[in-house]
């Protein structure tokens, strides 16, 4: 038996030896039960136990508990020990409470009473025992009844250092569990100044407390920044002998350094220039030290030194403001990528992920691409390989996407099962995001299915179909490629799904080639039919009926399959019903009806990549830290999953709907097939501009309204905004959730603009806000009086917001309407341009030919004229042009221009400061489909502003 320290409890040591000598689990349990019975009888017995015996038995119970057995008695005896006047008994009592008694225990009142007594003890060791117990249990009740005394203990000059240390962390624990219980208002400044304390241990403990408080209330603790920087500076410039026992393997105070560096990560770079310089010097010193030869060969030295270095790099990344430091950090991590210590390689890969997201260091990270790829292939530890995958994902951009995606695909063939699914998602996202050539994208996804078909989730193959449907330049290629892929003797069921869907839609594009004639396509698909699950079969049946429409010549072969006994009497209701109905449809419907019913799928509306959503769900932290941060966190368009058939969506093809209501409702198994199959009402008609938006979505760099780039316009906003140049009322924005209408009246320099928000859903919008933001350049030129809008918009309701606007001076930028609300707990943000533009304050003016020419000639200085020659975007229909000119706010003056096709107009622009006359001449050239637009006014900027606006309208 090893020596037992202090006043060993002999009985306990004997008991532990007994347990260790047990030959079997059963013997151990038997010995424990015997002991439990013995202790129970002692506790219940008539003979009062002395403190030593109580302590011994409580300790035995603790040991039994730590072996993994439940203990349901002895708590009262432990509480009794707390009030013993012998230290060792008290100590064991507290230990038992810390380990075994939950915060909710009935005994807590008694425990708290003992804590109160010990806190006022003259012996600091007793005070610390009580504090440790509070820090270990940390219950609300403790915070409530004793917590109030701790700040005083922490900051009082009479408290000895070791008690201060414990008090600091006890307070931290109580703040965590019940922050509202202990108000620290009056103590704030004294707590912050603990950073200056003489005793390093006190500072070490206080820094953790301060960081936790800062997280809750950064503003109140702001003054800690300069203190933390100067403390850090003193440590990093100290020689290792200065700090005596706080130097750890030649590294001065690594724990305190790391805590200070973390504390600073709660604030932006210091505003005060001298503090900022001092911090930069600290960070540089830490980076410099990394280059110095090690002072010891021990791993403890290198770990401690690098722990500080990594935390410094975290701070550099957090501040994200000093390109020099960021690049140095990146180079340092680059060295670690090839270090012999696995731990350092792992951490370097992890930190580089963050550096890759900073614009300053993204390029520097890319230099290490080859090393990272090597790591992916050669690291022996899967957790390190995982980091390499994360980093490749984060460092990917358009320039290296093909290579990175290629490498990841190659690695996927041998990748660990545990990371395959995530890799598939990442490859799919990168391929989509950085595709320039969509044939490449299609190849990548089909390769994914080929290599790791089992790990290709529905989201991935839905997405490739969405993209192929929305991009007609890739459809033929996709059809050809899936056709080839399906030739493989064994192909994954996901390949059959994609193949079935794409050939059903676009098989006609390759049908000209006799090697992929309609019949060959059909036979190829059907050869897989029997190997597939019912879901896939259902999808293939939909493909077959589409084939009947595309290729009437193989109708009879298909009808034969649909009408086969095996299908018409299929035990799977969904399949049976499909066969019967498709067969009937193909027999009854005329080719025209068939063509309407089976029309090509309309483009899918813009939506968040469902794959990205899936990756986020799978790895919330990784994506938040990874490359996505700068992208669409929340899309404007609600994320409609592919598999959500829109029940409220208009059904342009009622026949399809009626025909298939039964199957889609009849069997849950059919639901998946339905999404892409026939019987979903086609997705809601996409807005006119959706093609454009979709592309932008694909490229991933469109300005999304996600808080990172708060001022970026919502997709489609610009187009809709332009529609209002020549009209006052209309729909400014519409998506699945919300319609925004505008009704405006203008009189001279005044405007009354009503904005109508219609909630299209059945759920409330909450936290609804709508604010008009004026760019600095127009703040003085436009004055706005907004009316607030109610924060809740009920489902189906419409609310109005009124803006009274005055034009003070000419301006060229429209106000920005920022809308934000929460719908089914997702925050939605919209940034729209409110169509209040300078031309709205024009008043048409009439004048005769003589007056016009006199004024025209008077405005002959070159800068008073703005001339634009441009190509017609719309048909040059005289009547339409006339309506637009009038709608823009100009008059149409007859008999001035000898050419009757030309338009001559005049108007007065009203601002509060002045009135400006404007003359306009618009000359269409129908042969060339061009216009020449000439505007003259006394103010050059007004001529130009009107020219810019008018140019977009014809």
């Amino acid at each position, binding site marked *: 038996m090893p020596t037992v320290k202090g006043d060993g409890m002999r009985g306990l040591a004997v008991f532990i030896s007994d347990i260790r000598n047990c030959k079997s689990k059963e013997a151990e349990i038997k010995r424990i039960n015997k002991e439990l019975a013995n202790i129970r009888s002692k506790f219940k017995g008539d003979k009062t136990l002395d403190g030593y015996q109580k302590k011994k038995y409580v300790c035995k119970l603790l040991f039994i508990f730590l072996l993994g057995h439940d203990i349901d008695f002895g708590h009262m005896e432990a509480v009794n020990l707390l009030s013993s006047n012998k230290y060792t008994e008290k100590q064991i009592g507290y230990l038992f409470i810390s380990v075994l008694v939950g915060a909710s225990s009935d005994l807590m009142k008694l425990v708290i009473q003992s804590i109160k007594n010990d806190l006022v003890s003259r012996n600091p060791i007793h005070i610390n025992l009580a504090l440790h117990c509070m820090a270990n249990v940390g219950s609300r009740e403790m915070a409530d009844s004793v917590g109030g005394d701790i700040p005083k203990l922490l900051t009082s000059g009479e408290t000895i250092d*070791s008690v201060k240390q414990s008090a600091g962390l006890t307070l931290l624990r109580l703040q965590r569990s019940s922050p509202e219980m202990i108000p620290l208002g009056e103590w704030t400044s004294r707590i912050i100044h603990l950073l200056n304390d003489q005793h390093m241990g006190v500072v070490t403990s206080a820094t953790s407390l301060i960081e936790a408080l800062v997280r809750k209330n950064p503003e109140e603790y702001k003054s800690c920044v300069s203190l933390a920087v100067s403390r850090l500076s003193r440590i990093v410039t100290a020689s290792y002998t200065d700090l005596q026992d706080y130097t750890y393997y030649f590294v001065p105070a690594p724990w305190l350094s790391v805590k200070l560096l973390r504390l600073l990560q709660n604030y932006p770079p210091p505003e005060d220039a001298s503090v900022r310089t001092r911090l930069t010097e600290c960070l540089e010193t830490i980076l410099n030290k990394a280059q110095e030869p090690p002072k010891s060969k021990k791993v403890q030295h290198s770990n401690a030194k690098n722990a500080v270095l990594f935390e410094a790099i975290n701070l550099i990344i957090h501040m994200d403001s000093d390109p020099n430091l960021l690049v140095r950090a990146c180079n340092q991590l680059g060295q670690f990528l090839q270090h012999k210590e696995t731990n350092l390689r792992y951490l370097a890969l992890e930190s580089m992920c963050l550096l890759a997201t900073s614009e300053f260091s993204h390029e520097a990270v890319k230099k290490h691409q080859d090393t990272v790829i090597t790591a992916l292939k050669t690291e022996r530890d899967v957790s390190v390989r995982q980091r390499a995958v994360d980093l490749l994902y984060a460092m990917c951009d358009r320039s290296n996407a093909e290579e990175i995606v290629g490498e990841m695909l190659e690695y996927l063939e041998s990748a660990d099962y545990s990371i395959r699914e995530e890799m598939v998602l990442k490859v799919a996202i990168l391929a989509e995001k950085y595709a320039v050539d969509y044939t490449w994208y299609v190849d990548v996804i089909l390769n994914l299915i080929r290599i790791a078909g089992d790990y290709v989730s529905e989201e991935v193959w839905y997405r490739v179909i969405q993209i192929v449907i929305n991009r007609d330049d890739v459809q033929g290629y996709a059809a050809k490629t899936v056709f080839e892929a399906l030739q493989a003797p064994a192909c994954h069921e996901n390949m059959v799904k994609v193949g079935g869907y794409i050939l059903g839609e676009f098989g006609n594009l390759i049908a000209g080639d006799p090697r992929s004639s309609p019949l060959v396509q059909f036979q190829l698909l059907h050869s897989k039919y029997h190997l597939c699950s019912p879901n896939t079969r259902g999808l293939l049946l939909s493909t077959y009926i589409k084939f009947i429409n595309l290729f009437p010549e193989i109708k009879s072969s298909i009808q034969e399959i649909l009408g086969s006994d095996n299908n018409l009497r299929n035990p799977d209701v969904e399949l049976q019903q499909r066969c019967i109905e498709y067969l009937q449809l193909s027999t009854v419907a005329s080719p025209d009806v068939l063509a309407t019913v089976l029309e090509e799928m309309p483009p899918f509306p813009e939506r968040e990549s469902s794959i990205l959503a899936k990756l986020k769900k799978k790895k919330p932290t990784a994506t938040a830290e990874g490359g996505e941060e700068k992208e669409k966190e929340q899309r404007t368009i609600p994320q409609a999953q592919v598999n959500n058939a829109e029940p409220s969506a208009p059904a342009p093809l009622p026949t399809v709907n009626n025909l298939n209501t039964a199957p889609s409702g009849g069997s849950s198994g059919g639901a998946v097939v339905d999404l892409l199959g026939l019987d979903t009402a086609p997705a809601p008609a996409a807005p006119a501009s959706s093609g454009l938006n979709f592309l932008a979505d694909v490229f991933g760099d469109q300005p999304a309204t996600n808080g990172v780039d708060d001022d970026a316009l919502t997709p489609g906003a610009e187009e809709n905004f332009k529609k209002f140049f020549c009209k006052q009322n209309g729909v400014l924005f519409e998506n699945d959730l919300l319609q925004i209408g505008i009704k405006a009246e203008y009189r001279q320099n005044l405007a009354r603009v009503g904005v109508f928000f219609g909630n299209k859903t059945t759920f409330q919008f909450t936290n609804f806000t709508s604010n008009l933001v004026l760019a600095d350049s127009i703040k003085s030129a436009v004055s706005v009086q907004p009316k607030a809008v109610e924060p809740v918009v009920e489902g189906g309701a419409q609310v109005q917001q009124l803006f009274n606007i005055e034009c003070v001076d000419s301006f060229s930028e429209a106000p920005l309407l920022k809308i934000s609300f929460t719908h089914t707990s997702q925050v939605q943000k919209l940034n729209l341009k409110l169509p209040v533009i300078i031309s709205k304050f024009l008043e048409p003016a009439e004048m005769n030919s003589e007056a016009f020419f006199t004024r025209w000639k008077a405005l002959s200085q070159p800068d008073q004229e703005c001339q634009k020659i441009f190509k017609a975007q719309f048909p040059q229909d005289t009547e339409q042009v006339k309506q637009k000119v009038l709608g823009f706010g100009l008059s149409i003056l007859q008999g001035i221009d000898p050419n009757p096709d030309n338009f001559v107009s005049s108007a007065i622009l009203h601002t509060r400061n002045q009135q400006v006359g404007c003359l306009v001449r618009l000359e269409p050239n129908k042969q060339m489909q061009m216009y020449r637009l000439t505007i003259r006014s006394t103010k050059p900027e007004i001529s130009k502003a009107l020219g810019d606006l008018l140019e977009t309208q014809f």
Partner: protein
Amino acid sequence: MMQFMLLFSRQGKLRLQKWFSAYPDRVKKKTTRELITLVLQRKPKMCSFLEWKDLKIVYKRYASLYFCCAIENDDNELLTLEVIHRYVELLDKYFGSVCELDIIFNFEKAYFMLDEFLLGGEVQETSKKNVLKAIAAQDLLQEDDALQDVLVEYGLS
């Protein structure tokens, strides 16, 4: 902050557990089982860090004992390795070349030592001298207690 620290043997026997946040017993048992399995199956040269749920696990083996800490996402992995090392140094200094048996037979001492070093999941005192001084002061009180017992026994007090 550190969420918990586990000490277990190569045979998977738990020797010490310290939880810095309140977890239900059920969760504690499940977590312990999972982590012991996870860590024991790793090979010697592998990385000492792994992701586990939303925590990071940092572990190191000293002779027959594994020390395994769970820290939060923004905590420093390398420094956590040194937290483990400093704790081992403290035990070593106190017991004089510590072995697994010392911790089994003096588990309460291992707890008291830990309370002086880490509190509320944060490092309280990094100076080896200061921690050992605090423990020595406790032992002194213990001896007073023992002396008192003797005096009582002989009817002198």
